[in-house]
């Protein structure tokens, strides 16, 4: 495969004649598309299928939905078949393919927000705006094909709700669990939301006529303004803390207010690690990471140095991808790093590129993180302008540049091969492996892909030495870990601890325990793909091996606390609904299995939480086929939390 983006069969055999006959897009749609095409010469747009998602996002921002004539215009420009492009548009939760309200408030009703009053906000929204566009009462269905969709295709706007300017929908976890309950409106995050705050926000939306209002487009003038500590205006900054040996390590700058400009970062020791890496050379830098025993922080805990070595062995061009599609319910660590310490992520990525001989990098930020996107984009631009990225960066005989991409609402795109497909403009469906990303990753090239926290950890490893870092933590879990604590605790927040710290200590000493002197009933550990831990298990040290020994997982490092007032089966139903809505639909065990699993939990709830023999047999058979035969981790891990509850 040739260098750079390659679309499968670009334009070959695609009959564009029907598209030529389509009406032209509306002026605002055309303007939005011009922004996307601006940097690519007309003759080289064919085959740049990777521009498809940015184009769809631009249309969504401009109009609130992707219309048929506008989609046809995109297809003409890129040489992508209409059905394919539609299949991509209809894949993502933040893109709409039928007319509806101009602005949509995405209210998080995931576990942490559920425990902090999302239902009161939902009631207010229902009263104010009518039923949600998307939510549990539809079984989570996003507009099945029907007359509304058809009429929408021809732009007559006849579908229900088209007249209202503001609508709402339930959303899976928005990664704002430390300021729950939360909502996302356009590119604004509303945190610690009260019914009054919600009302004010709705009035602004109805008056603004533009979703971003004074905030501007993420790439617009507002992005140049200094980032507030909390990102969106009026949203409190993240709460954070640390305990134990060597901490704060990753949170050092975050705890003192962040370093969101290059000068602030340089003043705090920034880019010394890259300097060190260049002294050591690619092999030496790689050896430090190997000595550090760094395991991937995204959930799979794969040794980072092995990925580096595998990619370095392959012929170039090689790529580095930063997986910032943090979507695991209860997890917000990557968001905080990107918002407040973006250059550390960028420096770690640059070191990974240096060690593996990679020439290009991509940062894929989840669509629900507008502030993290603005922050990292700004950081990339500043780094490039000052020679920390780009051609012969810092005088090196090697070049590395980074592009920032945004997701559009799909948990499965955190799966690394689905993420590659998403960047390439395909549906976010995981690929079969082998081949592995280190052999054939993004655009078919050898690719190192790491989670945000993993890349940020590379910086202290180079600064203080792999041996020093490797001695932190436990026998099989080296270093420190960021833990997102939310739910029923006094101080939800982001905490850093060395591996091996007992979970109870994190909950009680850092997060202040359950509020109001209540008793902790269970902790959802590792996110929706993790398991419930019960009180007697809370003395378990947080480490890969110790949690594995009790059938749990570190996962993404999320701890969602549920006190004695929580209904665990209600939580279980939310988790089951999450997987049902986030399955890509490619393989049978996950596509059908996640639906059946949701039905099963509903059946258990109807029986008051009693799991009889028949339901138990169904669950065991279902869990087995999902774990054994699903294509990717989503389906394989989807039964975990429920299994830990059923076992009880």
């Amino acid at each position, binding site marked *: 495969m040739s260098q750079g983006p390659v679309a*499968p*069969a670009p334009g*070959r*055999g*695609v*009959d564009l004649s*029907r598209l030529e006959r389509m009406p032209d897009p509306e002026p605002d749609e055309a303007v939005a598309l011009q922004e996307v095409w601006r940097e690519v010469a007309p003759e080289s747009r064919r085959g740049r299928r990777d521009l498809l998602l940015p184009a769809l996002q631009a249309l969504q921002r401009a109009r609130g939905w992707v219309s*048929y004539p506008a*989609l046809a215009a995109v297809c003409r420009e890129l040489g992508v*078949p*209409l*059905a*394919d*492009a*539609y*299949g991509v548009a*209809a*894949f993502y939760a933040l893109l709409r393919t039928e007319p509806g309200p101009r602005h949509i408030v995405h209210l998080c009703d995931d576990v942490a927000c559920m425990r902090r009053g999302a239902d009161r906000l939902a009631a207010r929204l229902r009263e104010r705006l009518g039923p949600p566009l998307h939510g549990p009462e539809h*079984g989570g*269905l*996003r507009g*099945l*094909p*029907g007359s509304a*969709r*058809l009429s*929408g*295709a021809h732009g007559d706007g006849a579908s229900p709700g088209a007249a209202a300017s503001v609508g709402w929908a339930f959303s899976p976890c928005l990664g704002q669990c430390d300021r729950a309950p939360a909502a996302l409106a356009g590119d604004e995050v509303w945190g610690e939301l009260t019914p009054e705050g919600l009302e004010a926000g709705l009035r602004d939306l109805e008056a603004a006529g533009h979703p971003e209002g004074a905030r501007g487009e993420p790439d617009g003038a507002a992005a140049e303004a200094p980032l507030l500590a909390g990102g969106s205006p009026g949203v409190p900054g993240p709460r954070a803390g640390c305990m134990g040996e060597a901490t704060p390590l990753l949170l050092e700058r975050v705890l003192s207010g962040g370093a969101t400009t290059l000068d602030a970062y340089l003043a705090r020791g920034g880019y010394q690690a890259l300097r060190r890496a260049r002294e050591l050379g690619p092999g030496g830098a790689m050896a430090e990471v190997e000595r550090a025993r760094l395991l991937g922080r995204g959930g799979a805990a794969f040794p980072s140095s092995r990925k580096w070595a595998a990619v370095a062995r392959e012929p170039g061009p090689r790529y580095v991808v930063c997986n910032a599609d943090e979507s695991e319910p209860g997890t917000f660590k990557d968001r905080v790093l990107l918002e407040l310490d973006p250059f550390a992520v960028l420096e770690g990525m640059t070191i990974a590129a240096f060690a593996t001989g990679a020439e290009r990098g991509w940062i894929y930020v989840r669509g629900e993180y507008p502030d993290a996107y603005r922050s990292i984009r700004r950081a990339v631009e500043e780094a490039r302008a000052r020679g920390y990225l780009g051609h012969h960066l810092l005088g090196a005989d090697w070049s590395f540049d980074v592009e920032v991409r945004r997701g559009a609402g799909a948990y*499965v795109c955190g799966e690394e091969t689905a993420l590659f497909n998403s960047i390439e403009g395909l549906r976010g469906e995981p690929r*079969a492996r*082998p081949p592995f990303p280190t052999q054939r990753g993004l655009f078919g090239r050898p690719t190192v892909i790491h989670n945000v926290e993993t890349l940020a950890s590379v910086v202290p490893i180079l600064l203080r030495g792999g041996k020093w870092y490797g001695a932190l933590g436990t026998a099989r879990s080296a270093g420190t870990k960021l833990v997102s604590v939310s739910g029923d605790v006094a101080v939800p927040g982001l905490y850093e601890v060395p591996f091996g710290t007992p979970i109870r200590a994190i909950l009680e000493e850092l997060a202040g325990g359950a509020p109001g002197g209540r008793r902790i009933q269970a902790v959802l550990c590792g996110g929706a793909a993790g398991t419930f831990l019960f009180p007697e298990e809370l003395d378990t040290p947080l480490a890969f091996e110790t949690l594995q020994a009790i059938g749990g997982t570190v996962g993404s490092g999320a701890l969602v606390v549920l006190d004695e007032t929580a209904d665990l089966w209600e939580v279980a139903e939310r988790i089951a609904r999450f997987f*049902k809505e986030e*399955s*890509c*639909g*490619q*393989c*049978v*065990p996950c*596509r*059908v*299995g*996640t*639906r*059946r699993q*949701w*039905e099963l939990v*509903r*059946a258990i709830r*109807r029986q008051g939480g009693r799991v009889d023999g028949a339901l138990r047999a*169904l669950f065991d*058979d*279902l869990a*087995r*086929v999902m*774990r*054994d*035969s*699903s*294509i990717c981790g989503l389906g394989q891990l989807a039964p975990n939390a429920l299994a830990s509850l059923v076992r009880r």
Partner: protein
Amino acid sequence: MRLTIDGHPVEGPPGSTILEAARSVGVPIPTVCYHETLEPIGACRVCVVEVEGARTLVPACQRRVEEGMVVRTDTERVRANRRMVVELLESSADTRLAPEIGRLASELGADPGRWASLQHEKPLPARGPKLDNELYVREPDRCILCYRCVKACGEQVQNTFAIAVAGRGYEARIDPGFDLPLPDSACVFCGNCVAVCPTEALTFRTQWEMRRDGAWDESRQRTVTTVCPYCGVGCQLQLTVQDNRIVKVTAPVDDPTTRGYLCIKGRFGWQYVHAGLQTAPEALPKAQTDARRTA
């Protein structure tokens, strides 16, 4: 590459799959989404097998053979997984016209009925047949999302790209874009998607209408092999004939020229046979015009 399948030593050329290696020594592995003329899809997971050292089961249709690989195709774990896959398939789509799935269900002892007890939830609305043209019918309720039709329509066979998977999860579906009627899509009515559909979610209009009217009777049908009269390629045709009338045209998959794929003329241009006179294929565009009017 030397490997072992159920204890049999097998030699497989590099790049070949476990499925191919198993079939070469007569070890049966069931498949549903796999089609011999298409690249492996790996969506249905019916062909999963155990590979020593692998945490999960692997799809035999997709996984390439490796030196020293130890494969087991008939363990309790494999059978239980296949049985569940078939139960899930049958619980999610109308598979009554998919004989291969029915055969597998009885062989594996699959009981999709046990999932019915859960269906308190509003099921997805039945979508019913889509009758928007005279040549074929789409029945989404029979669709198992095997992706075969999408692959055949796209770069692997027809290069038309008229359909794709849209939506996601349980509501994923095959869609020409915005749920357009087929005559308004990029479809060229070659019928190659119908040829690869394993469940009659895509079916020829004649066949669909005869089934609806109770007139479709396979016991009264015979196959006549002939050569397409239209162009010079000379594609082999298989005419399915009932009561001395053509009811369906297919092509043999083992024909190296067509591999079972035809164009609109060979597939649908046979009405003149029954008109009693040799009319030119102008009949075809008219059929499409009619379809457009119906839609």
